């Protein structure tokens, strides 16, 4: 065996080794969450709110408040973010904006995507305190919306860029306005990509703890108004992970989060495939 094949074989072993490390560590994480989550998950866990612990007795109850809180925070946030994002993404195309300016906005969106989510958290917190509000569903929702806008916009933008120019020209030549072309033709053609972007944003928003840590606060009760503070699945995990009794709930919450992420990912694949039938190649 000469030097060249030896080198090839050494690197092949290294490559297989690294794939094993990657898959192994990730399988370990899934295994840990599924095993611990499945054993600690029961009906009580998802139908009850935490009962305040009397001195000397273990905290009981479930994590219903976190489940409801997560839904209340992330669904409206994803909705708002998607509405804003679609406007920006359509506007970034060359029909509306000069490519130079559009690229500058794209760069800003990339940086906004890249900055740690805790910055959104404290940014909203600053504004919240200066106008005299306290941590609530509303502020958490706004923080999540800000976090999701760059993610969803950049995904939509990539999808909309791919729309063939001929399609737009066809719409223009029939006399439609720029806005009609963008909303009726381009939006429809890029729909699978737009949907994938929205679902990616939802997945990111529902799992983010840092941005809602201070803005949504924490509460053991289900929020009754938009100005109540609320727990969410990620903040629940963050608050409970360090005590043995809390870990059970933390793992149940992690398990639910993981299931949601899986569902969102599968849904994104299925819906994308389904709506691909309607587009013009």
């Amino acid at each position, binding site marked *: 065996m000469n030097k*060249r094949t030896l*080198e*090839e074989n050494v*690197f*092949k072993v290294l*490559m*297989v*080794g*690294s*794939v094993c*490390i*990657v898959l192994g*560590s*990730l399988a*370990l*994480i899934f295994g*840990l*969450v599924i095993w611990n989550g499945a054993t600690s998950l029961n009906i009580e866990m998802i139908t009850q709110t935490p009962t305040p612990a009397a001195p000397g007795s273990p905290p009981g109850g479930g994590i219903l408040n976190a489940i409801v809180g997560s839904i209340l925070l992330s669904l409206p946030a994803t909705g708002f973010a998607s509405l804003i994002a679609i*406007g*920006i993404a*359509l*506007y970034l195309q060359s029909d*509306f904006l000069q490519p130079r300016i559009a690229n500058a*906005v794209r760069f*800003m*969106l990339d*940086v*906004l995507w*890249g*900055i*740690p*989510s*805790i*910055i959104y958290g*404290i*940014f909203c917190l*600053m*504004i919240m*305190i200066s106008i005299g509000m306290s941590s609530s569903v509303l502020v958490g929702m706004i923080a999540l919306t*800000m976090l999701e806008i*760059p993610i969803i*916009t950049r995904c939509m933008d990539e999808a909309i860029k791919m729309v063939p120019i001929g399609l737009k020209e066809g719409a223009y030549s029939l006399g439609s*306005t720029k*806005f*009609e072309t963008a909303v009726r033709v381009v939006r429809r053609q890029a729909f699978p990509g737009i949907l994938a972007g929205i679902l990616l944003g939802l*997945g990111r928003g529902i*799992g*983010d*703890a840092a941005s809602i*840590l*201070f803005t949504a606060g924490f509460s053991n009760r289900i929020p009754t108004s938009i100005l109540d503070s609320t727990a969410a699945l*990620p903040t629940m*995990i*963050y608050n409970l*992970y*360090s005590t043995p009794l809390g870990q059970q709930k933390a793992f149940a919450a992690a398990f639910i*989060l993981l299931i949601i992420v899986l569902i*969102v*990912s599968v849904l994104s*694949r299925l819906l994308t495939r389904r709506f691909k039938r309607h587009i013009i190649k």
Partner: protein
Amino acid sequence: MKTRKLRDIFGTKLMLVVTLFVSLLFFLIFSLLLYRSLLVLESHSIIDVLFSSIWNPDVGQFGLAAVIVDTILVTGFALLIAIPISLLSAIYIVEYAPLRLRRSIRPFIDVLAGVPSVVYGLCAFIFLVPLVQHQIAPWFGVQSTGLCIFTASVILSIMVFPIIISLCIEAFDAIPLALKEASLSVGATKWETVKKVVFRASAPSVTAAILLGFGRAFGETIAVNMVIGGTVRIPSSIFNPGETLASLIASKYGELMSIPLHESALMLVALILFVVVFIFYLLGLFILRRAKRRWSY
């Protein structure tokens, strides 16, 4: 006709407004962070804050040197683990793996990129912390509680695997087949082709992937906060507890926000995070643009 025209004008203006709003958000976040951190910069020079290692808010000392050292250690170590492993995995998946494995691995990696960081943190706390405490640290002959810089780096590297791998797979896939075939046809082995053609042709995109991985590792707050131990002191080894810039905000904000000067110090930390991410993205953009001019195929 008139309503259509009106709708066009109104719709376009609305889109302009949201675009302006997001661009404004960028400057708004920056300027508000700057404005809020001025308070601490008035009483302490920036040199003093960046290079003094004494963090003692109660007596008004806000030295960030220890936190900065920890951040560099955690991020650097995480990337040191993640980059070679991710690159080798991506090459294996694209060039060597059987087609069936290749097809099934992609969705799996996409799912992993979406797993919330708090879940990684929880797993690290349950599994990695005891492992480091009882096995790895004694193996190096040091005492450690397991809550340390090393643990944080390991979990961060696992978190950035899916990001770097999926971007690298895209980059390697985008290389024209003819380029590889030319190399193979003059007698290069597969690995030589990978080394001399694939790596070079994809260098700009791979750099961008690594920068993105860096951004994630650098700014990760929650997972790091859960396993790093939370001590602001210059570490003597990587098995010491520490605190990174991002995790400092998460762990100290609750107790410090009531006092303006303390809050201002944390705003300065956030400002540093923002500026560093901005500089790195600018760098990435610059590298990509130059590389595209040079390697245009």
